[in-house]
């Protein structure tokens, strides 16, 4: 088994077609489903849409957000899967796709 990070990009819970509460519940059941199959190492955390960006040799600090709303990372989870294809397959059930969002699947680098 290998570890993967899901980065949740964009998506709009408030504007979900089935209503925000029902949408949140679908997230819960999807994540809990992954947990029940032994694929979830950590539920992860949501991220604030704001922050600071520090860049360059001069360490210039600018205010976030750092991407357009549709690409903004809103949270992450830690997943366990056989390979990246399986990890990508497991992401298919994520409710984020119904609200215009995307899931980025990134393998955790192993030595």
């Amino acid at each position, binding site marked *: 088994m290998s570890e993967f990070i899901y980065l949740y990009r964009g998506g709009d819970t408030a504007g979900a077609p089935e209503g925000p509460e029902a949408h949140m519940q679908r997230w*819960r059941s999807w994540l809990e489903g992954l947990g029940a199959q032994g694929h979830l190492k950590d539920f992860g955390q*949501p991220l604030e849409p704001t922050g600071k960006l520090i860049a360059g040799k001069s360490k210039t600090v600018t205010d976030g957000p750092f991407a357009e709303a549709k690409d903004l990372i809103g*949270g992450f989870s830690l997943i366990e899967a056989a390979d990246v294809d399986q990890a990508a397959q497991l992401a298919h059930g994520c409710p984020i796709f119904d609200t215009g969002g995307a899931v980025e699947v990134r393998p955790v680098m192993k030595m």
Partner: protein
Amino acid sequence: MVATLTRIFGVHNLALAEDVVQDAFCRALEVWKFRGVPDQPSAWLMAVAKNRALDVLRRERTALRFAPELAQRLASEWMLVPTLEEAFEPHAISDDQLRMMFSCCDPRLSENAQIALVLRFLCGFTVREIAAAFLIGFAAAEKRIVRAKSVLAESGGLFAIDNRDDFTARLPAVQRALYLLFNEGYHGASPESAVRADLCREALRLTRLLLNHPPVATATHALYALMCLHAARLGTRLDASGALIPLAQQDRSRWDVALIAEGEQHLDLAATGDAVSEYHFEAAIAAIHACAPSAGETDWKRIVGFYDLLLRIQPSPVVELNRAIALGESEGPERGLAALRAIAGPERLAEYPFYAAALGEFELRCGRETAAHEHFQTAIGLARSPMERRFLELRAAACEEYTAFPS
């Protein structure tokens, strides 16, 4: 929550209060996605809203004018947090809800607009849910709310519930709005039973707020009794397919005895003063139904008597119709028909499906199936919801059965 924030921010900053609540709600959902819903989600939301309010007050206090009566305390960093803590105490929250409720029932607003505001600010309904509850389009509901909000924002401050005279003067409008809110849930057009039960539950909850603010008017007790006695039957009014079950065929063993007892207790409290209201008589009628062991054993004579009293203080064609139905139950279908036809100005009921349905019902009991069938057809043409239509179609079909198999 909007009520509390509106008192802090001032009624002119209503939109800001709504934004803070909306924001608290969105943040909660994002966190709950990952961490699960906490045991007490509303307490959690309150805490988030309080923190957001604090942020807003710190950030905007120089730019915005907040509630004038709190301005001085809010301006001082030293007083800011305790003031907010105080405002978010449970008793302060329920007082603010009461203030907001009286503010929403502004006489400058139509009754429908008042109810829409109550649903928005006190029940947290979204515009979409309000549109569904009233069976109107999203745009129409939004327009109604926006217009009502601008009237509310002009009013200078939340209603002062401590002023006894103002309170008494506005109270009937508030009772009326709560009554209509409950009725919308009980008889309303929304086909979703979940929406309807929500409306009834909210009407009960808000009426309890009035009961917690002494001195309580006897009409408020009567109103609450009426709601309890009707709500006790809520679960038995629809069958599994969502069709209406008439009172006579409801499973009385499934009526909620606790709610009936609560209703009767408040009906007794309502009788302690001299004042009577339409709610007294309606509650008394509901109590007779609730206590009858079966439809056949209902004391229809007393019900007719209460309708007579109700007509004296609230003459209405629908009340006359109900009286005629009760009379027919008590003295036979021919008397019922005569009473229905004797209603002055029957054209006032021409659009109301249950007038034609009542004519049909009594004609059917007199054995005149063809006449009954015609009346039910008229009623079907007037049905205001799929649920009513389905019910009336079943009654019309019952007439045909009689014709096909004369007994």
